[in-house]
């Protein structure tokens, strides 16, 4: 393999942690959602890297399904955000939506 596996895993780790930091640090729900997409992409990179490493196509198949789920998730998540902001509170701050807090 031309690119060492360690480099790919390190990049994946950095991207995943960046997404995680975005989720736990930011208040804007749109940016939290984008950070989730970032984390999904980090896992995609890891799946493809391992699939290439072992010469197995299953990693790429799995990334395909992750893309499908990510598309459905983005559509539903953004619909929920639009619905929340329009009907419930006119705000993009995640802390405002505490109706389901235990």
């Amino acid at each position, binding site marked *: 393999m031309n690119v060492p596996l360690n480099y790919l895993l390190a990049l994946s780790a950095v991207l995943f942690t960046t997404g995680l930091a975005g989720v736990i640090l930011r208040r804007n729900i749109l940016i939290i959602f984008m950070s989730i997409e970032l984390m999904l992409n980090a896992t995609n990179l890891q799946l493809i890297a391992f699939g*290439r490493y072992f010469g197995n196509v299953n990693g790429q198949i799995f990334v395909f399904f992750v893309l499908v789920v990510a598309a459905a998730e983005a559509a539903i998540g953004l619909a929920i955000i*639009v619905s929340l902001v*329009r009907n419930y509170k006119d705000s993009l701050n995640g802390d405002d939506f505490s109706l389901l807090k235990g």
Partner: protein
Amino acid sequence: MTPSIAVFIILAAIAVVSALNVILRRNPVHSAIFLAFTIVCLAGIFVLLNAEFIAATEVIIYAGAIIVLFLFTMMLLDVRGGMMVHQFQRQTGVAAPVAILILLCLLGVAISVINVTGLPAATISPGAAARLGSVQNLGQELYSNFLLPFELASLVLTVGLVGAIGLAGRADEDSEEQQRIAAAEAFDANIRATEGGTLEPEEGAAVAGHHS
């Protein structure tokens, strides 16, 4: 350093800088654009790893569909209102060290993965690697071994479509309905005001008399 490693390092640097910009920018529109940059760089890395079809799919679905969906959502919502709030959570002081700790753990695993688990070295030939991500190979696998998950994926997409329309579309109908009711009530009140406001009692008496 081989050319592919040099290309990888350039793409990885752009991807990481863009990813940091995604979570540090105040304006969500800038974040979305930087997320697109990250996606395109990742697609380039996928090409380096012989996953051409997945790279194309990634650009089409993420940069073409999901980012555009984000931008449409921001167009519908008042993004400037969201920019007024404090950017970071109150727990930043705790959360940032935790994130750095997780990063160090993951990096440690990534760097020492070969030594720790003793994975077998990659022994596939360049020809086999080139065939790995071809559309033919992927399609064959997808329609033979992964046929049921493939069909379920279409179901997931359909449910997502219906759910999105149900969630985002209902708001409009409700507000239209309320507007209609409010207009009808205003019209009613107007009629009553101009005609003396004795409509309902008379009607009620007439109905009562009819019934008895």
